[in-house]
């Protein structure tokens, strides 16, 4: 953990993230290009036809949506327990990104559900808990904005983020617990992935691309917030 706190020093964070950013952004672009080329190069699936390609944008968006929430909840715990200002900032910067990825997971899922299930939406465990994830993100953002006092806003939002984390295992296991049209876990399962390699590769590249893109944007947003805070401090000092 100690290296994390080293990285979490704002000055050190600015140095390290500044050096890392160009590499992360390049990796994101390359992985996304590879994923798109491979994704549109695959043959249609024998059951799902060409709609299988929706998987390459749906699954990574849903993964990042959940990962971002997990990171936001972890950062909230560190922010709450250690009173580390950068941890709170990290949580706040992850929220809007997570909300966008969640919305994308819902919309692309809907576009996949209509031709394959015959319905844009069903109120089953997976879809409902995933919709709740979007509301948790939006609630978090709204709660942060509802307080004038930044410390109180951070504390209230952190508690919401941590309590809301109970939704993550519900999303994950919803396809086992309840009857659903949504397919079960097909990548990280016992006995290896249940999908053909020809579909697995584009999915992995798109997932990598989405992951790199998320971290690029997260770092950029955190840098922005640090710069803004620095500017505010300087203005206050100047006003005195």
């Amino acid at each position, binding site marked *: 953990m100690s290296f994390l706190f080293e990285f979490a020093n704002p000055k050190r964070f600015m140095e390290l993230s500044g050096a890392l950013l160009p590499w992360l952004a390049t990796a994101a672009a390359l992985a996304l290009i590879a994923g798109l080329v491979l994704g549109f190069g695959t043959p249609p699936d024998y059951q799902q036809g*060409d709609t299988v390609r929706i998987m390459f944008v*749906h699954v990574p968006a849903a993964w990042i949506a959940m990962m971002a929430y997990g990171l936001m909840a972890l950062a909230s715990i560190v922010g709450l327990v250690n009173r580390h200002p950068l941890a709170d900032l990290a949580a706040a910067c992850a929220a809007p990104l997570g909300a966008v990825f969640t919305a994308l997971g819902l919309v692309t899922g809907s*576009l996949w559900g209509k031709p394959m299930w015959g319905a844009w939406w069903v109120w089953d465990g997976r879809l409902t808990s995933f919709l709740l994830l979007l509301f948790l993100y939006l609630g978090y953002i709204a709660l942060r904005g509802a307080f004038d006092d930044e410390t109180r806003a951070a504390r209230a939002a952190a508690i919401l983020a941590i309590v809301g984390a109970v939704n993550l295992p519900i999303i994950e296991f919803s396809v086992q617990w309840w009857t659903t049209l949504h397919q079960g876990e097909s990548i990280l399962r016992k006995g290896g992935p249940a999908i053909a390699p020809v579909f697995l590769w584009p999915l992995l590249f798109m997932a990598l691309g989405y992951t790199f893109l998320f971290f690029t944007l997260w770092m950029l947003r955190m840098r922005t917030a640090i710069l803004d805070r620095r500017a505010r401090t300087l203005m206050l000092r100047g006003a005195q």
Partner: protein
Amino acid sequence: MSDFFGQGGYAGYVLPAYAISAFALALLVVWTLGAYRKAKARLKNIGAP
């Protein structure tokens, strides 16, 4: 090319899924970069070291 725009009869679902994803992520990049540049410019205007 007609394969790409046809998508085996599912073009109405596959292409919007990609278009919406690309649009939303591009918007996110533009918004994030814009805020970053603005923050940098603001700090420079104040005359930060």
